[in-house]
């Protein structure tokens, strides 16, 4: 029999993990940080996402234009028009009779431009396990589309993904207040994550363009404005690469050592270490 949660919750934090288990978990994390399988498909998946889920043009007209020519020409044919009207009428009657009888998603009738109503099918019923309760991470209305996406990645459904208007404010659950004190937070007064991303992407672009001086200026600006930002690890990695590129190997090594101390389990640590391994 599996042990259950205690009838009374613990009042004290659990003690530190015993060394043997800690060592085991650390080893597993080292593997997680270096497994090439978790890097290899990155660009491929991004391309796939952009080609399918994210790549549908925003215009509805384009969707019609891109529809199979044979279907369109059949519908536009006089005989086809009559048949289409009959089919539509039949379909409308069928829909009317079904309404209220079932609570199934009606994807074939939904316009990608119509606002998404709260998807109750995605919200877990009350009797579900606590882990399935809504999580304050704004994901409650999404899992159904995600699960559909894995079973049938239909273009129409995908089009709804990014043509849907922003959700109503009441659906946007706030992040917990305590997050504002998180050491990893960005300062919203400085533009938040969007600004972080702009700086880091610009620095990355300068590195690609073999301009480490400008890249260094950008990462230093990021460091000044977002010392504990969301992209601190990426910034440090770029910083080390820029220093290495400019020949400041000693400084790059010091920075790597700081990185190791600051992000001991960091997923970018192996990449950072590889940067220095390649240095003369």
């Amino acid at each position, binding site marked *: 029999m*599996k042990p*259950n*949660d205690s009838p*009374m*919750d*613990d009042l004290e*934090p*659990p003690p530190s*993990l015993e060394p043997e*288990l800690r060592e*085991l*978990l650390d*080893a*597993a*994390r080292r*593997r*997680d*940080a270096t497994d090439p399988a*978790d*890097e290899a*498909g990155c660009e491929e*998946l*991004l391309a796939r996402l*952009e080609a399918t*889920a994210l790549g549908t043009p*925003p*215009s509805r007209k384009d969707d019609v234009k891109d529809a199979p020519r044979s279907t369109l020409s059949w519908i536009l044919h006089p005989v086809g028009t009559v048949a289409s009207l009959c089919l539509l009428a039949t379909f409308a009657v069928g829909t009317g009779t079904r309404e209220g009888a079932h609570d199934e998603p009606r994807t074939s009738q939904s316009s990608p431009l119509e606002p998404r109503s709260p998807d109750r099918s995605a919200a877990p019923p009350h009797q579900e396990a*606590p*882990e*399935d309760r*809504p*999580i*304050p*991470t*704004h*994901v409650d209305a*999404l*899992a159904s*589309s*995600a*699960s559909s*996406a*894995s079973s049938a990645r239909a273009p129409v459904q995908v089009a709804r993904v*990014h043509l*849907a208007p922003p*959700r109503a404010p009441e659906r*946007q659950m706030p992040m917990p207040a305590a*997050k*504002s004190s998180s050491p*990893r*937070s*960005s300062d*919203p007064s400085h533009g938040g*994550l*969007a600004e972080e*991303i702009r700086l880091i*992407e610009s620095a990355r672009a300068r590195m690609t363009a073999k301009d480490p001086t400008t890249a260094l200026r950008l990462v230093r600006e990021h460091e000044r404005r977002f010392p504990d930002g*969301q992209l601190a690890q*990426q910034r440090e990695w770029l910083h080390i690469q820029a220093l290495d590129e400019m020949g400041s190997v000693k400084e790059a090594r010091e920075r790597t050592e700081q990185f190791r101390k600051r992000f001991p*389990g960091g997923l970018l640590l192996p990449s950072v270490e590889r940067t220095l391994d390649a240095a003369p």
Partner: protein
Amino acid sequence: MTKADAVCGPRADFRTVFRTHYRFVRVTLRRLGVRENELDDVAQDIFVIVYRKLDTFRSEGSMELWLFGICLRVASRHRRLARHRVQSQEEEPIEVIDGSPLPDDHAEVEQARRLVLTALDAVDPQRRAVFVMHDLNEFSATEIAETLSIPLGTVYSRIRVAREEFRQAVTRLRAHRGS
């Protein structure tokens, strides 16, 4: 803002988030019990959600915590949908913890990871999530409590019980490997 801006703006940010957190998502899904051959599909589902919801992410929060919440929810749903598969796996004998040969420097850590992932399967799913969040992803108990909407004391007790389940599973698996 034009409709094109609405689409193109978030897309640019999305690419960075995707590249930055691709490994994190895969690693997290694996720790939550998604099988290796299903990782790509589930990760794709996750990033479709991320794309849609990126503008609702609050920059004062932790991106990794936010992503973990999405992973947890999708992995949970995925597990329910694949319940019949899980049940058939439960009937199989415990996975032997060795596998394809690897370079020496990777073999040991790969063995450790396989042991950890197999042992995690023996932990109750609710407690597994808390254990992964706390002892592997190193989120604070307060962050876990807020993300899962459970009291802090429940987080503590789940960690404690999950560790015991995990410890027993590790012992069992090591004995099985040794025999």
